[in-house]
């Protein structure tokens, strides 16, 4: 660790000196690994002879071979579709709930707001692995209170860790973990709305519902865009929850999500070149999706501003 040195060259160089630690860390732990991943993705190992002795394994240029392999790999495509389906549940539900709770916290004469705000935020402090573990047990018929009650009432007990319900089970873990943080972000921007706006709405006789829909939600649109943006990114990178549920069910494969497949290829089957190509594809897909969303959001904003 370096600290910013006392600058002997005055104000001009000072900001650069302050940025040295960040620049060094960025180069070592962001830029270099990304560059290395790209390099790996265009190479493969050629084994000559029996693969014995030094020089028998050589890294050679592979061109786009790893990429075509990855894109025609049905496992990766299925994983991508699974995660897209999962994201289509998680993002709207999580942000819908976050917005609902934020508006409720911001409404008049609401009671117990500090307590409920902290309670809803609390899952943020629970590691994803532990969250998946807790819910995993709540999904297990042997130990779950839900199944206990269902059993006592003589109702059918669905298998939550298989097929379609598995998506809901996984989505629920993500919604549980992420709603609180997003609620805080939206609530913060709700509180930044000037009091005069509320007063004006009241004088015009707007109901709380009208105020929420016509005034509050449009005014916090930027924070909604931001939470959407980060939620999309986080959802595409799902890894911990399905990995944690794997020991509890046979229906989560080692390649359930694209990131799990990258991990399996790199450390399970030991093909780091293939894994690198997949990682680069996922990174590009994430960039395209998230920036595509931002551009669409900006265009809408501009249109609304113009109309």
């Amino acid at each position, binding site marked *: 660790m370096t600290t910013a040195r006392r600058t002997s060259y005055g104000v001009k160089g000072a900001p650069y000196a302050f940025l040295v630690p960040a620049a060094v860390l960025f180069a070592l732990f962001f830029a270099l690994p*990304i560059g290395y991943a790209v390099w790996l993705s265009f190479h493969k190992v050629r084994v000559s002879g029996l693969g014995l002795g030094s020089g028998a394994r050589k890294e050679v240029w592979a061109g786009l071979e790893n990429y075509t392999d990855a894109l025609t790999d049905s496992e990766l495509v299925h994983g991508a579709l699974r995660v897209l389906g999962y994201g289509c549940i998680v993002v709207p539900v999580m942000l819908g709930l976050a917005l609902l709770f934020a508006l409720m916290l911001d*409404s008049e004469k609401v009671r117990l707001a500090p307590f*409920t705000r902290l309670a809803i935020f609390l899952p943020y402090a629970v590691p994803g692995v532990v969250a998946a573990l807790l819910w995993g047990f*709540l999904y297990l018929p042997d130990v779950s209170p839900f199944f206990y009650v269902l059993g006592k009432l003589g109702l059918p007990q669905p298998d939550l860790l298989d097929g379609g319900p598995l998506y809901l089970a996984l989505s629920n873990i993500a919604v549980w973990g992420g709603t609180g943080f997003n609620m805080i972000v939206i609530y913060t921007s709700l509180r930044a709305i000037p009091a005069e706006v509320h007063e004006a709405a009241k004088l015009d006789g707007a109901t709380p519902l009208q105020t929420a829909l016509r005034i509050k939600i449009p005014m916090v649109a930027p924070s909604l865009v931001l939470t959407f943006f980060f939620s999309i990114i986080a959802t595409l990178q799902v890894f911990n929850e399905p990995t944690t549920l794997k020991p509890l069910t046979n229906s989560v494969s080692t390649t359930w999500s694209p990131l799990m497949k990258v991990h399996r290829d790199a450390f399970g089957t030991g093909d780091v070149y293939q894994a690198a190509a997949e990682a680069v594809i*996922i990174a590009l897909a994430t960039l395209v999706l998230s920036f595509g969303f931002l551009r669409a959001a900006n265009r809408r904003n501009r249109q609304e501003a113009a109309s």
Partner: protein
Amino acid sequence: MSALAVHKAPSKAGATGAARGRPPLRGRIALIPTVTLLLGAVYCLLPVAWVVIASTKSGRELFSTFTFLPGTGFADNLQDLNSYRDGVYWTWMGNSALYAGLGALLSTCVSAFSGYALAVYRFRGRESIFNTLLAGVLMPPVVLAVPQYLLLAQAGLTDSYWSVLLPQILSPYGVYLARIYAAAAVPGDVVEAGRMDGASEWRIFSRIALPMMVPGLVTVFLFQFVAVWNNFLLPYIMLSDDERFPITLGLFTLLEQGANQPALYTLVITGAFLAVIPLVALFLLVQRFWSLDLLSGAVKS
């Protein structure tokens, strides 16, 4: 959302929203918002409540009694956890505290330097440096972690404390927050006055600006502490010796073994319960002097 439609609060002029100052005690309670929030709180506390109760059950009780009845086995469970592989559980806890504590401290320092530089100075390349750092947020962790592992392996650093600590020091979100706080908390004329007095740039930062930035930096520290404490992927990839595992990875391996032998379920559940305590306690403690809103970069004008 339809629940809102039923609710019409009496609009008394002069009543202020609950968010802006304390609500007056007279007048109705807004029933629907309160009930909605309580339902949300119940949903969010349910798994935590379950693990608190489940950790008191013995192995037999876990599978035979109603889940929300406390059991009689908490002391035994604790003892089993303590004796499991000579108390490796507490080693994991200590490791997590080390990774998160030291990592968050270093991360806060780097964020403070960078945020201050980006907020206070006008210099060439300022925005492009900032945007480059922020782009780091968009990189999927596994995309970074796989080549990081391979590079660290070449340096002979994998399976060491460094391999988990170093990659997490630079936090794009931390830099972003620190920049916002520095811009809001450090007035330009104070920096100018320092220069007039002949103080060096380093002295202005450490003696004048840093104390002003403290509330914001507490937030950066907390955010990063939680991020490192909750991280699973990086240690999962980097570490193989479970003496260096953080608690997330330790519990995961425990669950993996326990899948075939339900006898280990009670260990996992008790371990999960104890693993949740530190962070929840941390949040309840800082609640008194720190506002959650700061996490999303809110600054009081």
